[in-house]
């Protein structure tokens, strides 16, 4: 109750003052009792400072309360807690509930947008939504149809709406938004429909567009300065967003921006990654296809790109670069560095200097990754920063209408959007991963606006000659580029992890288990089967002096599409065992929040 008062009065005092509104949000982020942003904090740590639940007592955890969302689809993201109110979102139709934590979760208000149902089938891979954001007494929702809505956090009344894209040409949204200072920063989905990705800043108070930076196109579109925007320390030069494309192909170039965003207030830089170039047939789009598959650092005020790093030039496997960028300050060779750690779909975990964009570490975070022998780390080399592609697994070198087999990871990536956690206590990253490989056969497709523009056939299966399962949950050392421990899982781990000051790490599984493991050793300490498979992210908050852990259940997303029926195994009959069971044997659709606590 006290907290809410404090919050309301701060908002009143600071109304109209952008910088202070941002300070207010950062203050809330630093309060471990609340969960004010999907990613835990601007640095995307997904770390809770609460330690009431710790590795000694987590085994006693029990269900405190539950809430049905009323929607049976893939539930990604997590609730927010601000003061005494919890905000819960759903997949399409993107309902938002405000629940009163002082009154057994009574629904204070509910917002349900009216959206054209024709947006449903243009959303690749289920109608997920990764949650709402909060700032300035406002809840921000980015709907499936790309409408950005600002809702009064107290009443649910609509303050403003802005339209960010056009579903008729395949532009949709699945992501949350990032409130920074007086702006809301917003991405776009639709890489499988040939859209051109962009990031847009809207004025937090009015919804007016402030800037938009495209992933490809002329410098005026990409917001790049040929001299001052750098790639691995060198100026990108003029028209870098068009000169690695053939003709006008950049106009349907993909590079969508549907992942997680982070922000460094000191450097005033926003970090995110861009997705795959369209189509999935590499022969149809010669060149590096810049700046798809790229880590971007943009100025929050102007959108200007400070530095970029393209991880997978000329993608041949659909390894979107959208996964989260986790910001940490750590010591390397006796020197404190401002770091950015990123677990890419391509199976490589990158550590960069987030101020300069210098590449420090690039190592495989699943030993089965085989499409590359590694990244050239020699700054004086012609191919500095580029992954060396293994010819056998190159779908471009093998060509159209050739089935390239045994590529690891699969297009799902060693990790998809499911976000990792970072504990400043252990300086380890806790990473939910896929352990899946694929056959990939590209072929020619034609482009029709608003229609899928894929151009490849994929077969996926559990990584051969391994434990038979399709996932691992790992702890990663980003300085030495090493796996510290790895827990095999029967299915891909498609849930966002949470690390806590109690040295417990939580994650969900596709069968529906919430699991708690020891942050140092990975030893399992607790598990509970929720009603449906988990693809949501674990969060924690405090209410009336008690720590709670919350998770959304509701199987779906790409995991629900790929794994519901199980994956085939090309080694069938050659002694492969077990792992390729069907997810549908373990769980069915659902939509529920489960909140845990220790016994009173």
């Amino acid at each position, binding site marked *: 109750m006290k907290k809410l008062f404090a919050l309301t009065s701060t908002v009143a005092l600071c109304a109209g003052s952008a910088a202070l509104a941002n300070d207010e949000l950062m203050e809330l982020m630093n309060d471990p009792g609340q969960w004010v942003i999907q990613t835990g904090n601007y640095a995307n740590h997904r770390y809770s400072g609460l330690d009431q639940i710790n590795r000694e007592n987590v085994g006693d955890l029990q269900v405190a309360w539950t809430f049905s969302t009323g929607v049976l*689809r*893939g539930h990604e993201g997590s609730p927010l807690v601000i003061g005494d109110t919890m905000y819960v979102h759903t997949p*399409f*139709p993107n309902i938002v509930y405000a629940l009163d934590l002082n009154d057994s979760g009574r629904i204070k208000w509910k917002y349900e947008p009216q959206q054209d*149902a*024709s947006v*449903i*089938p*243009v959303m*690749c*891979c*289920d*109608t997920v939504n990764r949650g709402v954001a909060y700032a300035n007494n406002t809840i921000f929702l980015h709907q499936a149809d790309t409408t950005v809505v600002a809702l009064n956090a107290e009443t649910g009344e609509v303050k403003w709406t802005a339209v960010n894209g056009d579903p008729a040409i395949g532009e949709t949204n699945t992501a949350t938004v990032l409130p920074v200072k007086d702006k809301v920063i917003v991405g776009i989905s639709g890489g*499988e429909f040939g859209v051109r990705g962009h990031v847009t800043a809207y004025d937090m108070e009015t919804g007016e567009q402030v800037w938009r930076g495209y992933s490809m196109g002329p410098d005026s579109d990409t917001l790049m300065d040929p001299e001052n925007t750098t790639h691995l320390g060198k100026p990108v030069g003029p028209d870098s967003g068009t000169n690695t494309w053939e003709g006008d192909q950049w106009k349907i170039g993909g590079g969508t921006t549907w992942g997680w965003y982070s922000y460094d207030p000191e450097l005033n830089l926003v970090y995110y990654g861009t997705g795959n170039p369209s189509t*999935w047939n590499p022969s149809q789009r010669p060149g590096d296809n810049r700046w798809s598959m790229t880590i971007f650092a943009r100025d929050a005020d102007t959108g200007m790109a400070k530095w970029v790093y393209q991880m997978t030039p000329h993608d041949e496997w659909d390894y979107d670069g959208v996964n989260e960028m986790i910001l940490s300050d750590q010591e390397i060779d006796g020197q404190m560095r401002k770091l950015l750690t990123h677990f890419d779909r391509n199976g490589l975990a990158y550590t960069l200097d987030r101020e300069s964009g210098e590449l420090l570490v690039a190592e495989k975070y699943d030993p089965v990754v085989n499409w590359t022998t590694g990244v050239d780390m020699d700054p004086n080399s012609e191919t500095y920063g580029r992954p060396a592609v293994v010819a056998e697994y190159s779908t471009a070198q093998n060509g159209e209408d050739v*089935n390239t087999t045994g590529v690891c990871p699969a297009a799902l990536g060693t990790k998809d959007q499911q976000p990792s956690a970072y504990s400043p206590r252990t300086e380890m990253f806790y990473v939910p991963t896929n352990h899946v490989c694929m*056959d990939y*056969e590209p*072929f*020619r*497709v*034609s482009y*029709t606006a608003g*229609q*899928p523009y*894929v*151009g*490849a*056939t*994929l*077969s*996926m299966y559990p990584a051969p000659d391994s434990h038979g399962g399709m996932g691992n949950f790992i702890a990663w050392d980003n300085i030495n580029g090493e796996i510290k421990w790895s827990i095999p899982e029967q299915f891909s781990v498609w849930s966002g992890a949470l690390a806590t000051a109690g040295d417990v790490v939580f994650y969900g599984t596709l069968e529906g288990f919430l699991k708690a493991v020891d942050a140092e050793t990975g030893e399992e300490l607790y598990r509970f089967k929720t009603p449906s498979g988990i693809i949501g992210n674990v969060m924690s908050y405090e209410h009336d002096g008690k720590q709670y852990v919350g998770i959304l259940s509701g*199987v*779906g997303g790409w995991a*629900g*599409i*790929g794994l*519901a*029926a*199980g*994956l*085939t195994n*090309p080694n*069938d009959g050659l002694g492969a065992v077990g792992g390729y069971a069907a997810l549908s044997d373990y769980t069915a*659709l659902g939509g529920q929040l489960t909140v845990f606590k220790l016994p009173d």
Partner: protein
Amino acid sequence: MKRLGHALIFGAVAGLAGAGGATENRDLPGDGPAAYSEDGRYFTEDGIPTYFIAEDGTVDWLTFSGFRRYHAECHVCHGPDGMGSTYAPPLKDAVERMDYYDFVYTVSNGIQNVDTTHQNVMPTFGQNKNVMCYIDDIYVYLKARGDGALARGRPAKKEAKADAIREFEDECMAGG
């Protein structure tokens, strides 16, 4: 009337080869549904496109091509091998329930089934050449899956692509 509509759409988009049946009686070995073949395509006694799987497991070109096209255009909603997902129903079963004409009609026109308990929406693919030029391929592939004649995964052996199929494909993909 409805049937006529289907046939017209199909005829316009994919070009119904061999309708009416060139051969009276089945002249193919085995007990599959294929009664006769023409230009590398297989048909039932009623002139409906179907699959043909030889004793050694070699599949006809269209079934193989259907496997590829299905896993490019359909599987992102309907799951691998026509098995369905948490998002959309299994098409290997759908082709057992609906006939060829209904299948083509549904793919061309989509589905809108939205109420308090359903949110099933399938887009219209009628203008999408990547789908409509291969509609027979996708149908016979799913039919082979639904009949239990074809296992999951990529067919290991396939017939060569007939010149007539290549010509049809080029014309269809290039057409306006």
